[in-house]
């Protein structure tokens, strides 16, 4: 069923030697740049607008519009920035493009430079991606040597230089104003928009920031035409999207499918279904800013709008599949732990609000939650969403809200019945020995670090629930399946 895939952004990955420029050129490499340079700046911008391409880093802002804005601003110096600070846990498409097809990003940046009138570009890349950095450096040197970057590109008089800037592990730097702050040697704290980077960005100059996957689409759009690109996808979301399929699914890895493909096709056809014949429970899209989709969303065509309507978002394309063994309040808590740590601390709703959300979730997963807490979670989430400064805070409560909406039963069980059906929350589970199955071998008793198990050899054993620390050591040791988790 792999035929559902259409590769545009990943068209060259695995097909070319990323360290060999002639391989890239043999597959129409730098043809788009050459076409671009022989036409007007306006033509390029219009082509991208017409293609309907939208930002693949998460926001989904129309790329052509962004270019048009930056092109319209007057200025002697402008910058093109490629956002390669892929910090979304569970997403690795940008790394794949940079490692497998670095020239396509360089070419697209030069095209963008021509379109908006910039002569300098930077790639802001995670220091955690050493191979991508190495290959980019090789590609940059090769392109320069061949006259495809640098001064007087292809003899047209157009100049464009590209440099690298390194990130240092801060999720918020994926937000464009924070990224620019970081590039200038500061803490990556976002600032209020407007002014937008297109007006006042890097070093105070007009700047256009696009994500790696967005750039990787550009040469293909110029070579094959805006109409071709716009013919793929849905009404509002054109082209394809790369998803990083991971979690409890049989086939994990990157897949590129047309916008509008359903979750069912992604998870069950391409992904091969759930590992170990377990039951599908949720698919998390959009990383820590996204939400959990459920069985009822399986047949929804995925695009920017439908994911938003379902309480999640496209994000950078991470798609984590969860089965019945995953506890949803605990998953929400996991994401909040992430956002609390990654919040830059500048604005109060995000810095303090998310911390409180985390504490309430912690209370719930430890069996101390109340029905009132569930209401508080919802109210506070909405306040954080509407009052935070940047995209991080505005989306941080999404995992909480979407799990509350879609898995309210599970929250209810945690706070009222004090039960965790996925048997993840330790405070809410009990290890019990089934007398009929216990042969009295004593293995569990020897394994117990808390001396909570009593019983003589060849006699039925018993776990003292007051002493039990719920470590699960007995459960692992029992060869007779006599211990169950309740």
């Amino acid at each position, binding site marked *: 069923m792999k035929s559902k895939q259409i590769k545009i952004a990943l068209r060259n990955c695995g097909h070319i030697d990323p360290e060999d420029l002639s391989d890239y050129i043999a597959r129409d490499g730098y043809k788009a740049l050459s076409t671009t340079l022989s036409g007007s700046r306006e033509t390029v911008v219009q082509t991208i607008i017409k293609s309907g391409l939208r930002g693949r880093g998460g926001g989904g802002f129309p790329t052509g519009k962004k270019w048009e804005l930056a092109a319209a601003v007057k200025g002697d110096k402008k910058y093109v920035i490629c956002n390669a600070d*892929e910090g979304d*846990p569970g997403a*690795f498409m940008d790394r794949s493009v940079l490692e497998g097809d670095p020239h396509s990003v360089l070419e697209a940046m030069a095209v963008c430079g021509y379109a908006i009138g910039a002569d300098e570009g930077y790639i802001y890349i995670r220091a955690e991606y050493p191979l991508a950095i190495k290959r980019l450096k090789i590609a940059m040197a090769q392109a320069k040597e061949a006259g495809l970057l640098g001064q007087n590109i292809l003899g047209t008089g157009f100049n464009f230089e590209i440099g690298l800037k390194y990130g240092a592990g801060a999720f918020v730097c994926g937000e464009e104003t924070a990224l620019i702050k970081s590039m200038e*040697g500061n*803490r990556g704290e976002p600032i209020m928009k407007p002014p937008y980077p297109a007006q006042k960005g890097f070093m105070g100059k007009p700047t256009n920031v696009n994500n790696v996957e967005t750039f990787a689409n550009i040469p293909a759009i110029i070579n094959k035409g805006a109409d071709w690109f716009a013919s793929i996808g849905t009404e509002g979301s054109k082209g394809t999207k790369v998803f990083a399929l*991971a*979690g409890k699914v049989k086939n*994990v*890895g990157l897949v590129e499918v047309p916008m509008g493909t359903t979750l069912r096709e992604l998870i069950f056809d391409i992904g091969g279904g759930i590992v170990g014949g377990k039951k599908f429970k949720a698919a998390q899209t959009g990383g820590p800013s996204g939400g959990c989709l459920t069985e009822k969303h399986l047949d929804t065509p995925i695009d920017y709008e439908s994911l938003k309507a379902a309480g999640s978002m496209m994000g950078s394309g991470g798609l984590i599949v969860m089965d019945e063994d995953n506890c949803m309040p605990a998953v929400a808590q996991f994401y909040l732990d992430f956002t609390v740590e990654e919040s830059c601390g500048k604005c109060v709703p995000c810095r303090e609000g998310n911390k409180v959300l985390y504490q309430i979730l912690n209370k719930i997963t430890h069996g101390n939650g109340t029905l009132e807490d569930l209401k508080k979670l919802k109210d506070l989430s909405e306040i954080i969403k509407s009052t935070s400064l940047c995209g991080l805070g505005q989306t941080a409560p999404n995992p909480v809200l979407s799990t509350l909406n879609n898995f309210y039963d599970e929250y209810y069980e945690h706070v009222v019945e004090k039960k965790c059906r996925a048997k993840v929350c330790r405070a809410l589970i009990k290890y019990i020995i089934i007398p009929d199955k216990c042969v009295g071998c004593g293995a569990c008793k020897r394994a117990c670090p808390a001396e909570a198990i009593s019983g003589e050899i060849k006699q039925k054993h018993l776990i003292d629930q007051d002493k039990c620390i719920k470590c699960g050591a007995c459960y692992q040791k029992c060869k007779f399946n006599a211990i169950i988790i309740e």
Partner: protein
Amino acid sequence: MACAIKEKEIKEKVAEICKEFNNDPKELIAILHKSQNHFGFLPKEVQTAIAETIHIPASKVYGVITFYSYFTMEPKGKYPISICMGTACYVKGAEKVLKEFEKQLEIKNGQTTPDGKFSMNTLRCIGACGLAPVIMIGEKVYGSVKPEEVAKIIKEYE
């Protein structure tokens, strides 16, 4: 005396690194990357040396270091263990692997063993979600790690 020599060495090396970046405060993050590569971590002495060389307040250097998770003020162990806690690893049981390392090495996440051999930290995502749960020791990647394999993995380094 020994300390004074060390301080002199630090200052010289820092000056050399900063010069590569034209002593430009806007290159602070690049300077910190290079300094951490050289010294292994960024102690107070390195921070003040950088601040003096590129003429910015030491508080700014400290502010930037503490903002980014890649920079560390603690020396790492000879074999730094990084445990991925990205979502894919989390749903596949990375937490249990982390607990097992803590138990075996008798240190908490973020600490270094008293003999300086192992240090432990968690990462957000190393982009190897297909191999979840993933850990790295130095540059070596271990995929699909089960808690019961942890002892064996540690043994490789003894």
